[in-house]
């Protein structure tokens, strides 16, 4: 209570100093008046009181106004002295701004991913997500996708502890029928979704429970505030109007408040009842009854007394029961559930590689800032030595040491705040660049620069300013006064030069660490690009058709059309082979239950079973797979065939080790389905991603019994590189002619893989960029330090040259001294890099974090660059004219 009372008084004085002064004057006047009446002598009273002006000043000294005065004075002094050296100011501000800018940009991204709860919801700390873990042999997968029956069971089981809502997203919708209309990000949600999130409509209403009954969903839509304002006119007449998304009309019934944009990083535009989700029926059942339609996510609001462990246990039991009911013998008994934070990136699921890269880059940004700060400290030390006479005079005239330190630190803070201003702009630009690099598929609604980022930048700037400013200030306030005031003394003091050297060592060490990182990531990218996935990356082209939801003709129709098209394409010049498949290679994979001989092995066993693919005979040649044994399917390149099967090498080794696979019998689907005879063995491939294990793979012919649900809707071609563009155009034309309303999709294998390469490419690019930035800053630091030292020792070099030293000797001397320090830094940096290797191990491929050649490369680069930086001042030193040097002060 007392601190608060005093505080109120202090604040009042600061905000109204005029009133404070006036009141004090009145009070003192009254005092003297009363005393005069008492003493009956006005003069005596005045004398007794004392010097009023003096006491007024003394009283003012007790208030915060005095401190503010001092601050203002310090700032003015700092500004004046900085204005005299604009070059110095520019160097410090730019260096700091670089360090601050990259940190602020990284913070902007990382804050968005890890720290910010979804906006516009009430009490986000009570919200949770639900994660499912399934084991597949040695791997386990954690993700959020649930099927509808599981949700219903879990919701019932959780009653009383938590309320669950289910939602789904579709980012591929467009306004209107035109395939090129503006994109719309839709969220399909259960009717209690907004209740769970405690969001109230800004206009209109949200879904009613009867609009979200499975099997009879009503096509209504709730729109986001931004979407309403920018695309729908932004006035209240929107309620009841129709919004065309694709071919379906939706009636707009409400608008969410401006702050709410959904639960994902990608902001939602439209919310639609889950029952209206145009999911595909599977095996005769609608999507909400199908056990294999996963992909919906849960958001739940929990009670204050929520016990996550108990809930997870109960949910797991429920989930296993549902699995058993729905899938019988095929049920996955390894499934387990757990709750996680509403901030998705914090959940137990594995982070996207881009996000992991971003976290490491955050650390790198901090290192860049440290290097920048070391630079600034060095610059300040040098400047303090230049000003030592001025400082010595001030100290001799009575300036207290603490006041001097405060003064000098204020200077540095001023520089830091200037740098912060520049940094905020850099952060805005950098933040946008990071977003477009790390998550290019997202349409961002909010700016990369917001209050939090600005506050962060300012806070870090102040911290950096204080840290960087205090040491030189302390140093500067402790000169040997006598020496400083005398003329003719040169060296800045042993302690100062030790500190400067230490800073250069630190800068060199950090730079080496970042350079090692950059080279590791570049090597990783090279390794990843060099992976042999089995398919021929250069010559393979894939073609598919994409239809609007609900417009898709039956697979058999598409397949038949594709067969005709394949036949026509085969005759084109430039096309070497043509094949068909039910899934394009590297664009999807499937599994089916299989039975080899007497084994009764189900595909949901402890090991994730071999992959399954239905292809035509020409598929292997078209995608560049070598035939190792036997022959390919009958039925021609792109036609159908009988009940045959081909294995890849891994499958052959797995099921027939040492024996003969050809002629054996494999059944698919049910145990008593017809036999498929093994007719050949092909080489292994990566089928799911660029980085994959070489899994076993079954290939059955299109049209065979096992392929009854898998139709050849994709065409694969092997094309000569020079004919690529014309063949691709031809494919597009053929597809359009067959299905004018569909969207033809033609992609080469290398384009398809770019998606997989992207995180690696990003890692290499960003780490190299940051590493080079650090190198630049360190380079500037080394240059300025050597330059400064040379400047201090002009006299000494003059003497050396006068005594007969050659230019070469002086240059070598300066270089050797400079490089000695850098070499120590390099050694320290190598040790640091080895220690920190653990942090990036998960992002590397094909190269160890302690790779010797990377360290060697980094060290040599830094030494070379440092030598170049030191060469210029060294050369200047050798050019010193001994006469002028000896004569001058």
């Amino acid at each position, binding site marked *: 209570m007392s601190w608060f*009372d005093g505080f109120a008084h202090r604040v009042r004085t600061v905000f109204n100093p005029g009133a404070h002064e006036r009141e004090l004057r*009145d009070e003192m006047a009254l005092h003297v008046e009363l005393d005069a009446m008492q003493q009956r002598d006005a003069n005596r009273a005045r004398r007794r009181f*004392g010097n*009023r002006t003096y*006491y007024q000043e003394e009283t003012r000294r007790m208030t915060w106004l005095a401190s503010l005065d001092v601050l203002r004075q310090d700032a003015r002094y700092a500004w004046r002295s900085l204005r005299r050296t604009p070059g110095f100011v520019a160097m410090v501000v730019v260096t700091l701004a670089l360090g601050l800018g990259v940190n602020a940009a990284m913070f902007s991204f990382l804050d968005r991913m890890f720290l910010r709860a979804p906006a516009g919801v009430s009490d986000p700390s009570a919200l949770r997500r639900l994660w499912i873990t399934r084991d597949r042999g040695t791997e386990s997968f954690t993700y959020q996708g649930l099927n509808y029956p599981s949700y219903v069971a879990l919701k019932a089981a959780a009653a009383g502890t938590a309320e669950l809502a289910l939602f789904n997203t579709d980012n591929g919708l467009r306004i209107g029928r035109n395939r090129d209309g503006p994109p719309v990000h839709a969220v399909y949600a259960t009717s209690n979704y907004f209740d769970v999130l405690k969001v109230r409509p800004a206009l209109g209403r949200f879904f009613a429970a009867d609009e979200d009954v499975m099997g009879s969903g009503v096509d209504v839509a709730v729109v986001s505030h931004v979407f309403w304002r920018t695309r729908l006119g932004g006035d209240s007449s929107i309620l009841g109007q129709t919004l065309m998304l694709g071919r379906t009309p939706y009636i707009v019934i409400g608008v969410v408040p401006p702050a709410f944009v959904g639960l994902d990083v990608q902001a939602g535009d439209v919310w639609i009842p889950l029952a209206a989700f145009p999911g595909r029926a599977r095996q005769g059942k609608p999507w909400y009854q199908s056990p294999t339609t996963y992909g919906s996510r849960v958001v739940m609001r929990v009670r204050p007394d929520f016990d996550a462990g108990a809930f997870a246990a109960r949910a797991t039991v429920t989930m296993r029961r549902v699995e058993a009911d729905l899938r019988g013998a095929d049920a996955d008994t390894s499934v387990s559930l757990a709750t996680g934070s509403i901030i998705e990136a914090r959940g137990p699921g594995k982070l996207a590689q881009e996000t992991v890269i971003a976290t490491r880059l955050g650390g790198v940004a901090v290192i860049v800032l440290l290097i920048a700060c070391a630079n600034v400290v060095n610059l300040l030390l040098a400047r303090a030595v230049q000003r030592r006479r001025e400082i010595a005079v001030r100290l001799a005239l009575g300036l207290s040491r603490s006041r001097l330190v405060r003064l000098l630190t204020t200077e540095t803070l001023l520089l830091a705040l200037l740098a912060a201003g520049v940094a905020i702009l850099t952060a805005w630009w950098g933040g946008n660049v990071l977003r477009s690099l790390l998550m290019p598929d997202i349409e961002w609604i909010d700016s990369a620069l917001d209050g939090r980022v600005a506050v962060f930048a300012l806070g870090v700037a102040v911290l950096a300013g204080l840290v960087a400013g205090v040491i030189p200030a302390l140093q500067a306030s402790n000169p040997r006064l006598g020496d400083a005031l005398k003329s003719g003394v040169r060296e800045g003091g042993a302690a100062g030069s030790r500190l400067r050297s230490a800073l250069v060592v630190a800068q060199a060490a950090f730079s080496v660490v970042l350079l090692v990182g950059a080279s590791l990531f570049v090597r990783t990218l090279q390794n990843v690009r060099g992976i042999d996935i089995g398919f021929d990356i250069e010559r393979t082209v894939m073609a598919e058709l994409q239809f609007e939801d609900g417009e898709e003709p039956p697979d058999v129709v598409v397949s038949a059309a594709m067969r005709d098209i394949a036949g026509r394409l085969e005759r084109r010049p430039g096309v070497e082979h043509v094949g068909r498949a039910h899934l394009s290679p590297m664009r999807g994979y499937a599994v089916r239950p299989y039975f080899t001989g007497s084994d009764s092995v189900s595909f949901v066993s402890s090991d994730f079973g071999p992959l399954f693919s239905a292809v035509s005979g020409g598929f292997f040649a078209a995608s560049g797979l070598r035939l190792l044994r036997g022959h390919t399917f009958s039925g021609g390149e792109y036609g159908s065939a009988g009940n045959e099967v081909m294995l890849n090498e891994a499958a052959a080794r797995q099921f027939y080790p040492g024996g003969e696979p050809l002629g054996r019998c494999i059944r698919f689907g049910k145990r008593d389905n017809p036999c498929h005879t093994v007719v050949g063995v092909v080489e292994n491939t990566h089928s799911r991603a660029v980085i994959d294990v070489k899994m076993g793979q079954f290939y059955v012919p299109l049209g065979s019994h096992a392929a009854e649900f898998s139709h050849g809707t994709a065409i694969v071609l092997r094309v000569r590189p020079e004919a690529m563009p014309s063949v691709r155009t031809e494919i597009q034309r053929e597809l359009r002619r067959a299905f004018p309303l569909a969207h033809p999709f033609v992609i080469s294998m290398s384009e398809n893989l770019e998606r997989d390469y992207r995180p690696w490419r990003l890692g290499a690019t960003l780490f190299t960029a940051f590493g080079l930035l650090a190198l630049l800053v360190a380079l500037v630091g080394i240059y300025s330090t050597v330059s400064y030292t040379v400047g201090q020792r002009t006299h000494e070099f003059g003497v050396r040259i006068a005594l007969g030293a050659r230019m070469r000797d002086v240059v070598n001397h300066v270089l050797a001294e400079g490089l000695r320090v850098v070499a120590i830094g390099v050694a320290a940096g190598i040790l640091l890099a080895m220690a920190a290797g653990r942090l990036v191990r998960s992002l590397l491929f094909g190269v160890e974090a302690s790779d010797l050649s990377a360290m060697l490369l980094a060290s040599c680069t830094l030494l070379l660059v440092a030598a170049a930086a030191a060469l210029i001042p060294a050369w200047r030193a050798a050019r010193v004219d001994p006469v002028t040097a000896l004569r001058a002060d």
Partner: protein
Amino acid sequence: MAAKSDILPGTLDMLVLQTLSISPLHGYAIAQHIERLSHEVLRVEQGSLYPALERLQRDGLITGKWGTSPTGRRARYYTLTASGKKRLGQEISDFEQVSLAIARVLGREVRV
């Protein structure tokens, strides 16, 4: 006779607090009270009261409010706060301890 700047700021604070513990007063009245009760042994240059009052307000031990004096003049009256009272108690006990110690050293008898 004590010289005019003899009294230490810390002691002055204590005396002001003690004075105000009896009743709220304005600045002149406080000065009069201290002078009177100490039989003019302790004389402060009157002006030095005001920095002390500001200090005490800043530390939240007293609060000041403008009011009207018995003679109808506008004056600022100071009151002791709860923490002021507590601090007074501390200061008094400290002072007594120190006096005891000094007296012992000087070989004087102490009457509490």
